[in-house]
């Protein structure tokens, strides 16, 4: 038996990649340049596609391969490409201006990760040797952490495009939860979700463009005329 056929090795690889995904998420919290942010998001999505492939390989679940391919096409190639073009087209010169500064943001992200571990702990079933619990304990915590930090990023940012990125990274968390808990959703649901993510991101990109054209800014704090 080769070393990569050992499922222990697979577990470790998944945990390692999940840890990297979390690191990238925290990088995105502190990163001030929009282009770097987009690339961090693409890399994070690529790692998720790798995790999906690994899970598919060790659990002989072929339909996860399809999810991985979709992930690769939509979130690693297509959306970052569209976003980078958008950034160049609307000539964003300035960096991201978060509401809370970087050190405090990192502390908040750390606290959210801690919270995620507490929540994930309630799912842990040590008496079940097989199934998602054995594989997914760490991964699930990372998934919930991605979800929570994604939330935090949405609140913490003022530029429209960075909010879209935060929303997408939050969705990455759900993807990770889905593959680590249940080895993916049923095929049709998986495809539908990717379709929705793709259309949604396109719609939002168009909206960002129009906001920029109308307000001459992407700062969503200027969107404050409707009240009451």
């Amino acid at each position, binding site marked *: 038996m080769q070393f990569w056929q050992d499922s222990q090795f697979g577990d470790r690889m998944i945990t390692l990649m999940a840890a990297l995904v979390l690191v990238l998420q925290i990088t995105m919290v502190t990163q001030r340049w929009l282009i770097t942010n987009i690339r961090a998001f693409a890399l994070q999505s690529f790692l998720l596609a790798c995790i999906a492939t690994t899970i598919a390989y060790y659990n002989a679940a072929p*339909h996860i391969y399809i999810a991985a391919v979709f992930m690769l096409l939509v979130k690693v190639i297509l959306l970052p490409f569209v976003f980078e073009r958008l950034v160049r087209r609307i000539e964003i010169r300035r960096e991201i201006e978060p509401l809370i500064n970087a050190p405090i943001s990192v502390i908040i992200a750390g606290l959210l990760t801690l919270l995620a571990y507490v*929540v994930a702990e*309630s*799912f842990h079933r040590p008496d079940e040797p097989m*199934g*998602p619990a054995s594989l997914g304990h760490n991964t699930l915590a990372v998934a919930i952490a991605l*979800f929570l930090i994604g*939330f935090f990023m*949405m609140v913490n940012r003022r530029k*429209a495009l960075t*909010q879209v990125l935060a*929303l997408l990274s*939050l*969705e990455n*968390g*759900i993807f990770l*939860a*889905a593959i680590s*808990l*249940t080895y993916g*959703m*049923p*095929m*049709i*649901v998986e495809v*539908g*979700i990717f*379709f*929705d993510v793709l*259309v*949604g991101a396109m*719609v*939002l990109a168009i*909206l960002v463009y*129009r*906001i920029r054209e*109308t*307000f001459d800014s992407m700062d*969503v704090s200027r*969107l*404050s*005329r*409707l009240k*009451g």
Partner: protein
Amino acid sequence: MTIIILLSIPLLACGLTALVRTRQWMETIHLVSACGSFAAAVFLAGEVLRQGSVSMGNGFLYADHLSALVAVLTSFVYLVCAPYAVGYFRRDMADKILAPTVDDAACLGKLRMYYTLTPLFGFCMFLVVVANNLGVMWIAVEGTTLASIFLVTFYGRPTSLEAAWKYAMIGGVGLSMALFGTVLTYYSAHQALGGDSVSALNWSVLVLQASHFDKTVMRLAFILILLGFGTKAGLAPMHTWKPDAYSEAPIPVAALMAAAVLNCAIYGLARFYVLTVLCLGPAFASNLLILFGLLSVGVAVPFILVQRSSRRLLAYSSIDHGGIMVLGLGFGGALGALGMLLHMTFHSVAKPLLFFCVGNAQQHTKSDSLQKGAGGLIHALPITAPILLLGALAVTGTPPFSMFQSEFMVLRAGFAGHYTRASIVLVACLVAIFCGFFHHVAQLVLGPPQAVPREVICKWKTYPVIGLSLLVIGMAFWLPAPVYQLVDGAARILAVPR
């Protein structure tokens, strides 16, 4: 087969509208497709009444009494919006709001956007109610958001972009929570059902096994689902997108969102509610629903009392009614479920009526303000204005109108379920909302007259208003037996044995 027809009519209409070149054809296709969808939904309801439930493609599409009821209500709102939209956009064109000149290419482009996206919007709503798979249901709910974002930005004003941005972001976050909830539901069912992946998210399969689900996971799942679909239904405190979107979207879109999307979101919530009650017992889900319901009704009170815009007034009224429906579901029992579904039915008739009246007034006076100087509509709009007053009475639950019955039923369910304090708070809020709402509408209709000429009657915009008002009056005294059977059957699905 009827389900397929119901789904394919709006899709076909969307495709055809993209191809035709003249406004007349777009309007014709839209009207025909609206009638067709309504007919299909009624046929589906008939089939369900005869057979109990209808399913297609190995249970992929599934309709029981609950789905049939919501499908009929959705297609009804879609139907009444169609002729109104024709008149409404013709008036906009004449007023040169869509484009600087009448009937040029820019104008046609805008109309094409409306007439293609609205059927798509309708398709997503129909898919929500007939999808058996909860994942597909989520996809369809997200689809309704995506299809309607550009309908909110229809007029292209800076404020409509702002409204659409809030709608997209709050809706996006909310629905991602609902997706997480769906994933967790799948996980909690996963162990009970084994590895069968195709039907493992089908509601009709899950409901048989729900008592074996993992309880910790289901608890978290329901919270996320409630936050998610609650955002879509506009429950407080996730309601902030609603007044903005309703005041910026064209009137037919606002009516569709207020009366049809609300039903679809509550429908999704109700499906998960049944699973949760079967898994965890009624207390957990009921308490959460009552909390959010009361919060929504309570939040609506101050904003209705001091409101300055008639369309935002309607939005807060819709938040209030969403809250009442959720309260009915939360109070539970046969009575609560019946009250909630009757309320949904009556609301779907009364709310479009109010939106149409307000739309007529707004197009005539060029303002949706409720402040001083905006009043006396009864002199300028001799048909719309009295009906607006009637609609206001109906929607605030004044007897003899039918919403009084359904609100009363929800209250009775509250007292019967020993939720006395919640019921008393609800009564207080309803009274305050009645005062605020009626004050504003009475001021608008009967106040000192403005210097605007009398309206020229537009058939497209007036007949739907008259028809709906007759229906509102009729329903106060008589609900057709098949409709009641449908509501009753749907209530039996929601009234889970305790």
